[in-house]
């Protein structure tokens, strides 16, 4: 794979035997995402959880351990695992809160998956919830205080669109795209997700958006416009996992975990060597995930993807970091419809962060929810024919200072 500034695992293989086919998801739930002014985080947790246990066909009392993911605790549920256990009235079981920026939801699942895989528990719950629309302003809460007291003194007061817009500036510059050519490529990314969103009753934004409408929208952070940015939403999603050998006791069509990988910046991208046109954590997590899942040719083997399209440029660069598109050539695949719902590898069949919405800590589990439904053939109007392997990807932080999580799921 091209583009890595690092040598993968040069000081030893950090993966042992891996998690492939050791754990299965037997139930999932996901709320409608959106600006849910009349719902608090408790409502969202209850709704995702009720759908989840109903889908799994289990009782609450069967769950032996739980992980809750929430990111912006200032405006969300609050710190610790208490909000989940007290809302769901979990009977004094171990509950753990995790937070890892936009990878939070996938991290919650990783905790639950490892817990059952180890044999410590037989059944575990992962739930991600985020209530973003209680801040009083648009966009995510400022990073000013979320980055720690030292960074407050030296880091620009960046917003998420600004952080990712810098990658678009560099991408256009490096590959010689005029602002119009670059924005047109990105507009196709967003337009495709808008179309998919119209097919999904749980999506936040359910309107088509044309290429021209997208290109001419107001600039949020140059060169990204309004339609290059994902929805800022409230929502929750949940999963129940058991060991693979027990899965069929609960349902005929469990979905198996083929890989769960997380990669976190070492700091070198921001301070030393980022090339501005790729995300090193995505690249590293993907390489490990393919190895863990036994995938050798992702362009051929992956059936569908839910990628972290917080911004259109992120999705475009992720195609390249995943090794699906060649370096600097995502434009060709994007514009040929390769990632459209009827394309070779549909990306964001549920509308993606762009249109399903992005309640930070729920997003990872929401993506897995879509893959789960697609693999089970229950994705209704947006069903992809006979999918075998689904990939999800989260990216938290900024392109040069990030947390990436990848899951690979299959039957």
């Amino acid at each position, binding site marked *: 794979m091209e583009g890595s500034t*690092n040598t993968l695992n040069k000081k030893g293989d950090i993966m042992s035997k891996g998690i492939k086919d050791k754990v299965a998801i037997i139930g999932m739930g996901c709320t409608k995402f959106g600006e849910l002014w009349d719902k608090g985080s408790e409502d969202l947790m209850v709704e995702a959880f009720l759908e989840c246990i109903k889908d799994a066909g289990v009782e609450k009392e069967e769950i032996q351990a739980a992980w809750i993911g929430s990111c912006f605790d200032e405006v969300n549920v609050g710190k610790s695992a208490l909000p989940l256990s007290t809302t769901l009235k979990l009977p004094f079981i171990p509950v753990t809160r995790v937070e890892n920026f936009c990878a939070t939801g996938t991290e919650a699942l990783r905790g639950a998956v490892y817990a059952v895989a180890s044999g410590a528990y037989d059944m575990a719950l992962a739930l991600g919830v985020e209530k973003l629309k209680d*801040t*009083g*302003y*648009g*966009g995510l809460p*400022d990073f*000013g*205080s979320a980055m720690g*007291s*030292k960074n*407050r*003194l*030296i*880091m*620009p*007061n*960046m*917003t998420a*669109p*600004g952080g990712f*817009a*810098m*990658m*678009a*500036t*560099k991408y256009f*510059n490096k590959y010689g795209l005029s602002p119009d050519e670059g924005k047109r490529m990105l507009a196709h990314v967003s337009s495709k997700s808008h179309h998919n969103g119209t097919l999904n009753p749980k999506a936040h934004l359910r309107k088509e958006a044309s290429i021209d409408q997208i290109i001419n929208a*107001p*600039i*949020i*952070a*140059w*060169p*990204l416009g309004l339609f290059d940015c994902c929805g800022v939403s409230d929502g929750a999603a949940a999963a129940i996992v058991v060991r693979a050998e027990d899965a069929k006791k609960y349902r005929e069509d469990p979905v198996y975990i083929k890989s769960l990988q997380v990669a976190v910046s*070492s*700091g*070198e991208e*921001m*301070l*030393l060597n*980022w090339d*501005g046109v790729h995300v090193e954590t995505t690249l590293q997590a993907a390489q490990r995930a393919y190895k863990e899942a036994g995938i050798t040719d992702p362009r051929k083997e992956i059936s569908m993807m839910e990628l972290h399209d917080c911004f259109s440029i992120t999705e475009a660069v992720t195609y390249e970091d995943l090794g699906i598109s060649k370096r600097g050539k995502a434009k060709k695949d994007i514009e040929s419809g390769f990632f459209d719902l009827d394309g070779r590898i549909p990306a964001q069949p549920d509308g993606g962060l762009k249109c399903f919405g992005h309640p930070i800590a729920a997003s990872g589990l929401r993506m897995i929810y879509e893959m789960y439904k697609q693999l089970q053939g229950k994705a209704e109007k947006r069903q992809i024919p006979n999918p075998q392997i689904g990939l999800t990807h989260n990216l938290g932080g900024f392109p*040069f200072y990030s947390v990436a999580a990848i899951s690979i799921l299959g039957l």
Partner: protein
Amino acid sequence: MVGIVSYGAYIPSYRIDRMNIYMAMGWLNPASMLPGEKAVANYDEDSITMAVNAGAECLTGFRRDTVDGLYFATTTPPFIERQNSSIISTALNLSPNIKTGDFTNSIKAGTSALISAYDSIEAGTSDNILICTSDCRLGKPGGYLEEMYGDSAASLLIGKNNEIAEIKGSFSISYDFVDHWRTKKDEYNRSWEDRWIRDEGYGRFIIESISGLLRKYDLKPDDFSKVCYPCIYERAHAFICTKMGFRLEQIQEPLFTNIGNTGTSYPFLILISALEEAKPGDRILLASYGNGSDAVYFEVTDGIEDAKGRVKGVKNMIESKQMIDTYEKYAVFKNLLDIDKGGRGEEAFTSLSTLWRERKTVLGLVGSKCRECGTPQYPPQRICVNPDCGAIDDMEEYPFSDKKGTIFTYTGDNLAFSPNPPAIYGLVDFDGGGRYLFDFTDCELDSLKVGMPVKMSFRRKYADENRGIYGYFWKAVPIR
């Protein structure tokens, strides 16, 4: 011999045409019209930031650990208690073993600091004293002073070796002449009648100090190549010249129509203008004004030619400018309007104990350089960021504030709060290595390109007025 070893000017990038102010506010006070333009500090500048930038320019090419004194002269210190000169000293990465002092409360405080520095070095108790003068005074909207006052800073390094102009002598007078005044509760200067100020103060004190100096050292007006003194009233400025028996060509042009009356920094900026065109052997006379007057005279040495190549003076700073096209924008920069900042404009908590621990990193922009692999890194790291090295606790301090760099990538962010949107920021690659993320200022989004050269400028990163905290840090600016 004690004298000026180096000079540095800092004139903010922004100007406003006085006619623009008059068009907006002249209806209130039709007699307030003044010609030309004035220098305006950007929204993220204050007396401290401008002083740091003038000081940094002045110290170009000098070892900073040789400076053992820093005097800051201003009538607009951002802090009443918290020594402003200590902030400047830390930002300039000077040694903590240094005498610092704030000279304030009169616009002649700059020359007072100069005379004190001279005395200290002459007495042998100091070797090199950096004087930073800086002011951003506000005139009340619609008043004459609003058009008159400009914002700028100027620095002189005083020492006893390699001087470019020897300090030959001084003469001071001090009076409680209440022409302009401000108490601790006042945002704006109050003033007495202009005719009285002109005839009884400005028109007399400069003449009195210069006459005193001529008498004291037995000199004649013809002994000087240039005479520098501030312009408060244009006609009275010319009157002082004729009254003293100077020829018009001896008078250094006082920049009044370029930058305005810039308070404590004003005499120094006129002096630097004179030094920029001086020849070895020239005698230059400087007089300040404000509650009296200090007169100081200099003799230019052969060292002047080196200085001209090393530091950029007033001329470059005057020519390199951008206009603020509306009074409303000026009013926002100057905090005259209580603008709607929205939820994103609310400032988060600042930890002052974190600032103390990280003072070199934050105020001084000091990073680290790995002794193993030579990689410069900001902020300083304990474990080398180079993945091929990874050395532990083998770093030396590495200052970045004097390094130029290039824009690696950038954006203009309309979502983040800024008094001058969009908030522009990006990654800067430093010449010689090292990369960090900085706010960009004094520029328009359209003027930026990947690969464009930039330098560092000391600024207010944020202003938390509710807690009385200004988050000082460095931003990237286009090279002037």
